[in-house]
C-alpha cells in the first residue's frame, strides 16, 4: 500500500483548485455547494451556463478518451478532479447523465454516426440528457419493462408507455429509453435502447412532488413518440446489455467527489452542533464521531475499489451503495436532531437549508438505484454466494 502522492498529482491538483478558484466566482458564486441529488432544482439555467464555463476550460468529460472529445485523464487524476471540484463547492453537474451515463455507453456501443452526432453536445455542455429506465411496475424489478416500441415502414421507431423517476427530464433535450421491441418477450430479453428528443408531441412530462416539496423527478409518458431509425444503440434486443454497461459506468471515480460533498455536509452538522450547544451532548458527540468514522471508511473503501485491491471479487464494491446510502440517511437524521426545533421550519439560512434538504432527500438514497433490500440480496448472493430466492411454486 502506498498513500503518498506524486509531484505530478500535486501539480494537477493545484491546477484544478486554481481554475475553480478563478472561475467559480461572480454570478456563479451563488451556485457553490448547490445542485446535486435533492437540490437539482437550484437555478438550472445558471448551472447550464456553468457547464459551458467548465467546457470552455475543458473540464467536462475529463475521463473520456481524447478522441471522444474528453480529456483522457488517468484514474488518479479523475479522482483528484472530482475531489477538488467538490472541495471548491462546485455545483451539482447538470450534464452528469450525458457525461457519466449516456456518453460512456455511446463510446462503448454507439455507431460512429451516433458518436459524432451526440458526444460533442455533451462535451460542450449544450445538450442535456434524461434517463428512461424505471417504470411504475419496474422499480426493483428493473427488467420488467412494459414500455413497448415498434419499427415503422420508414425504419423509425415508435414508443408507447411510461417511465418514472427520470431526474431533470424537464430540463433536458434528450432522453434514452429502454423499451420492449419483441412483443411477448420477458425480462431482460427483447429490449431496445433508443435515443429520443423530449420536445415532441408524443411525449408528456409530469413532475413528481417529493416529500421535501421539490419535484426534480418526473414521470414521462410516451404515446407513439418517435425515435429516428438511426437512433437505436446496438441492435434491437441488445437494450439490456447497453443499459447495464451504462449502469456500471455510474459507479466509480465520482465516488470520491461525492465523499468530498459528504465531508462538507458533516462540517455543516458540526458547525450546527456548535451553534446549538449540542456539541456538549454526549449522544450527539457519539453520533458525530461515528459519522466521521463512516467518512473514513467510505474513502478507504473507494481507494480499495479504485486500486482494484483484493481478488477477482471486489467485496468493497459490492457493499459500496448500501454503505453510503445508509450512512447518508443517518447523517440526515443526525443533522435535524442537532438542529432540534430549528429544523422544523423551512429555512433559507445556508447553515440550515442544506441540512433540511439532506434530511428529507436522503430518504431516497436507500431506495433509488437498488433499494436496501435489493442491495442486501445482491451482497448475500454475489458477495457471499448464498442461495438465490427460490421462485414461488407456480
Amino acid at each position, binding site marked *: *500500500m*502506498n*498513500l*503518498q*502522492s*506524486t509531484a505530478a498529482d*500535486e501539480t494537477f*491538483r493545484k491546477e484544478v483548485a486554481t481554475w475553480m478558484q478563478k472561475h467559480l466566482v461572480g454570478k456563479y458564486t451563488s451556485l457553490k455547494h448547490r445542485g446535486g441529488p435533492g437540490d437539482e432544482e437550484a437555478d438550472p439555467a445558471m448551472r447550464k451556463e456553468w457547464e459551458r464555463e467548465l467546457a470552455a476550460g475543458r473540464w467536462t468529460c475529463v475521463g473520456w478518451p481524447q478522441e471522444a472529445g474528453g480529456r483522457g485523464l488517468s484514474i*488518479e487524476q479523475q*479522482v483528484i478532479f472530482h475531489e477538488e471540484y467538490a472541495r471548491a463547492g462546485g455545483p451539482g453537474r447538470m450534464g452528469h447523465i450525458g457525461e457519466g451515463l449516456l456518453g460512456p455507453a455511446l463510446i462503448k456501443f454507439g455507431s460512429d454516426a451516433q458518436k459524432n452526432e451526440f458526444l460533442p453536445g455533451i462535451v460542450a455542455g449544450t445538450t442535456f440528457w434524461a434517463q428512461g429506465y424505471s417504470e411504475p411496475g419496474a422499480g426493483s424489478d428493473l427488467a420488467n419493462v412494459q414500455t413497448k416500441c415498434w419499427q415503422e415502414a420508414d425504419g423509425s421507431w415508435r414508443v408507447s408507455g411510461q417511465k418514472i423517476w427520470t431526474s431533470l427530464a424537464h430540463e433536458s433535450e434528450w432522453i434514452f429509453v429502454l423499451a420492449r421491441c419483441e412483443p411477448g418477450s420477458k425480462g431482460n430479453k427483447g429490449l431496445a435502447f433508443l435515443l429520443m428528443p423530449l420536445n415532441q408531441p408524443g411525449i408528456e412530462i409530469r413532475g413528481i412532488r417529493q416529500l421535501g416539496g421539490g419535484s426534480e423527478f418526473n414521470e414521462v409518458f410516451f404515446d407513439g413518440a418517435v425515435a429516428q431509425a438511426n437512433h437505436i444503440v446496438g441492435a434491437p434486443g441488445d437494450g439490456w446489455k447497453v443499459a447495464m454497461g451504462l449502469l456500471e459506468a455510474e459507479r466509480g471515480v465520482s465516488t470520491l467527489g461525492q465523499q468530498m460533498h459528504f*465531508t*462538507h455536509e*458533516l*462540517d455543516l452538522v*458540526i*458547525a450546527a*452542533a*456548535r451553534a446549538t450547544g449540542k*456539541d456538549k451532548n*454526549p449522544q450527539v*458527540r*457519539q453520533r*458525530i*464521531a*461515528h459519522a*466521521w*468514522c*463512516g*467518512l*473514513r*471508511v467510505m*474513502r*478507504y*473503501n473507494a*481507494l*480499495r475499489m*479504485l*486500486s*482494484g*485491491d483484493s481478488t477477482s471479487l471486489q*467485496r*468493497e464494491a*459490492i*457493499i459500496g451503495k*448500501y*454503505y453510503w446510502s445508509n450512512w447518508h440517511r443517518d447523517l440526515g437524521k443526525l443533522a435535524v436532531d442537532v438542529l432540534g426545533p430549528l429544523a422544523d421550519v423551512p429555512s433559507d439560512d445556508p447553515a440550515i437549508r442544506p441540512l433540511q434538504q439532506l434530511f428529507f432527500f436522503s430518504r431516497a438514497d436507500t431506495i433509488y438505484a437498488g433499494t436496501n*433490500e435489493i*442491495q*442486501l*440480496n445482491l*451482497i*448475500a*448472493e454475489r*458477495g*457471499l*454466494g*448464498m*442461495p*438465490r*430466492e427460490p421462485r414461488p411454486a407456480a
Partner: protein
Amino acid sequence: MSGSLACGLNRLDFSLNEDQIMIRDAAENFLADVSDSAAVRKAMASERGYDESVWQRIASELGWCGIAVPEEHGGLGLGAVEIALVQEQIGRRLLCAPFFSTVCLAANILKEVGSHAAQQQYLSSLAEGGLRATLPLPSDVAGWSAAAANVVATRESGHWRIQGVVDRVPDAANAELLLIFANTSEGLGLFAVPADSNGMQIITAEPWDTTRRFSRVIMDLLLPADTRVDEPIRSAGFARSLALARLYIAAEQLGAAQQCLDLTVAYTATRKQFGRVVGSFQAVKHRCAEMMVKIEALRSAVYGAAAQAASDASTDILATECMMARALAGDALFYCAGEAIQLHGGVGFTWEYDPQLYFKRAQASSHWLGDSDALREQIAETLFSSAVHA
C-alpha cells in the same frame, strides 16, 4: 472541521505489494494448518496456553517476530501494514501464542520510544522470537498512562526502585521480559523488568477467553539504572505505539469477525429446516449480508489506518485513524459473533461449536485500550477542538 482530519491521501495504490501478499497468504495457510479449531481448543486447555512448537516455527521458519524490526537489529524492516495483515489472520484463527504481546506490544513500543542502548539490547532477540516480552493492556482509553497509575519508579543509589501494582498484562505468565510503565519524577517512564526479578509477583487467573490470558503484577523491585528503556526525547513515540497497538488489535478483531461470517455462511448452507437450507431464507441472507457490510467497511478502515501508519502521516492523524479502526472493529466483531451464535441456532451456544470462542474474544477485546464509546468520545473531542472550518 471534519475535513481537517481527512488528510490528503492522493495515490490510489491501495493494493498490496508482492511481499505483503506473500506474507498474508503464508499466514493464512500456516494458521489454517496449525491453528484450526482442534488445535486452539488443545492450546486453551494446556497449562501454558499455547503450543511452543508452533511458536518456534513462527519465530524461526516464518520470521514474523522481526517483520517490523529495523534490519540493523536483524528484522525485516517492514511495518504496520505487514503486521496488520498477519494479525488479521491470527485473529481469524484465534492463534494462541505470545505473538501479540511480544511483537504488537513490546517490540512495537521499544521501536517507538526505546533508547539506542535498549534497542541494541532487546530488539534483535525479539526479532528472533528468542525473547518473549509483554506490557500492560489497560481497558482505559488513556492507554499507557493508565497502566502507570499505580506504579512509581524512584532513583535509589544509582538503581531504580519500582513499586506498585499493574493489572491486565497479557501472556505475562510465559514472558521472560515485562515492560512496565511507571511514574517517575520526570513523568512517564518505561522499564524493562525480567520476569524472574526479586520482588515480582505474577498472578494469573483463567479468563472466559482462554486464548489470551492476563496477569496482575505486584512489584517491589530494585533494579539497575539501565532498566529504564525509554529515551525521554522520543516520548512522542508513546502516542504512536499506542496508536499502532490499537491498529493491531483492530486487525485481529477484523479477522475474527470474518471467521464468524465464514462459519455462519458455511453452516447455514448445510443446515436444513422446513425442507430447505436455512441460508436460502431471505432474512438469514440479509443478516449475513449485514455482517459482510460491517466487515468490509472495517477492512477498509483497518487497511486505511495501516496505510496511514506506513505513510508520513502525523502522530495526531494516525492516533485518530487507529481509534476509528479500533472502535469499528470492537463493534463489528461483537455484532458478528452474536449473529454467528444466533444464526447457528441451538448449536450456536454450545461449547462444541466455534462461535462461542469468537464471542468470548469479542467481549474480552471490546475494551482493550478503550471501548468503542470511549474511543468515539476521543474522536469527537478531536473534531470539536479542531479549528472551525470556513
